[in-house]
């Protein structure tokens, strides 16, 4: 059974982060939100494992500063 990877896994984290921010550059709020939605779907498809995706949804919810409803 595979588990969601929650240890550092991106070889060049600063490169990735800079590209992520750059992709949003000069987009409006709506365009950025839509881009994020597409990005989530693309990545989810790449993961392609419902158990892992469920764990990812949980991790993202837990990460919030204030408890989510």
């Amino acid at each position: 059974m595979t588990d969601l990877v929650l240890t550092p896994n991106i070889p060049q984290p600063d490169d990735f982060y800079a590209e992520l921010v750059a992709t949003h550059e000069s987009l409006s709020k709506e365009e950025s939100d839509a881009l994020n939605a597409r990005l989530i779907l693309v990545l989810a498809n790449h993961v392609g494992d419902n158990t892992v995706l469920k764990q990812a949804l949980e991790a993202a919810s837990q990460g919030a500063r204030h408890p989510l409803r």
Partner: protein
Amino acid sequence: MTKIFEVPLYAYESSADQASALPVRHQVIVVGAGPVGLAAAIDLAQQGVEVLVLDDNDKVSFGSRAICFAQRPLEIMDRLGCGQTMVDKGIQWHEGKVFFDTRQVYGFDLQPEKGQRRPAFINLQQYYFEQFLVDRVRGLQQQGAAIEIRGRNKVEAVGTHPDHVRLEVETPEGPYIVEADWVIACDGAGSSMRSMLGKDFHGRVFEDNFLIADVVMQSDLPSERWFWFDPPFNRGQSALLHKQPDGVWRIDLQLGWDIDKDKEKRPENVIPRIKAMLGDDIDFEIDWVSIYTFQCRRMERFRHDRVIFAGDSAHQVSPFGARGANSGVQDTDNLCWKLSMVIDGRAPETILDSYDRERTQAADENISASTRSTEFITPKSDMSRLLRDAVLDLSAQFEFARPLVNSGRLSTPCIYDGSPLNSADGLNGPSNTRPGAPCPDAPVGDGFLLSKLNRGFNLLTIDADAPDELEVDGVSVKRLALSVKDDPSLALKHRYLGEATSAVYLIRPDQHIAARRDSYEENAFRQAILRASGKE
């Protein structure tokens, strides 16, 4: 009590040059006695070059500015004879905490890599760094070296000629003219040498202001780096607390763009900000306070014939990641052996273009790293802030997000990939010691590798044969013979051999690797030495 940065260190004195009917010609004039100019002068003097330093001031850096000095610059300081003094005075640290909003999201421990003489970094006030360099200049003078610093000598005009540079210098006793075969312009970010020559300085300004304060306080807070994103005492902004020697603490507070700088600098406005951060009951005294706007920019080229730019005059970065002084002394480390070889005819003038090639590459790396840190610390769009905050929120619970948190990446040396001085890699060895890389330190016998290297070019052999000395077209190379057995911890093997069983490295005077092979092969190494001395 007078602060050390208020005492003249190289007070003005008349020099014979001022009375001379004809301008006196020097081998090298360094403009600016900041950390970079001083390092350049010491490096040249150690190689027997005659050098004169001119500075419009007569003191060390006013207030500290730089506080964090990284391993590679400390190794360079060892070569310049002041590494130990700096490390003895400096504070070593490796732990830190990151706070977001009201909570600590995580703590880190940057355990230094073992088996190296110097720590990953120390904290030391810039004025101490400069003072130790001036002490070293005095030491060299006592040994008879041709090195001189002239305080309150301000360069006011520059004239470039095919075989020399002419400077007009203003002093308390009036102006005089002086000449040099070569000039190194280390006159800082606001370089007047640069503007007098009409050279560009492009880049970007970050629309933000930072209040930088050094305070003296008795405190049992640990020697850790504490960084706050969006804390309650500085909403929407960032803050940093870091310890320096003598009970001095560095405080950085982001203030935003639309502020009145003069007003914010007044004690009645600074003190409440610091109290909000440290608590009302802490007694402290302000050592120095200043407000900065940060920029990332560089000159397109650092060499302009006989005037060569180094340090902040050539490139400027935001301080996140401590790359200003750290990279400036790496500039002079790169430049001085080349210039000294040109001066005594062992290398063609064109080798100086490799300085330009290698150090603009390093400047680009530094600018990129500090731009990224600045973007993370002060996101410039809503989405960038949203992503940043998401990373910080996740980092509290999930380790994976922590490498994405960027409150400043510490300065690491540039590997000069693709440099014209490198020869093709002839060893199936570790990537960190490929041609262009700085030599990593390693324990050997009762000491360390870097302290065993000779001053000029080295042929480092590990379990391999080679001649003890080699002379190629006026360039002499000395061998340092080692064996993996010299280091039971195997760091030497891991850093220099990897899978290989033997290796021969050609190492430049700045301790960067020029070539490597698994064994000594006469023709290949002669060729590599020619290449590394700019003759190919």
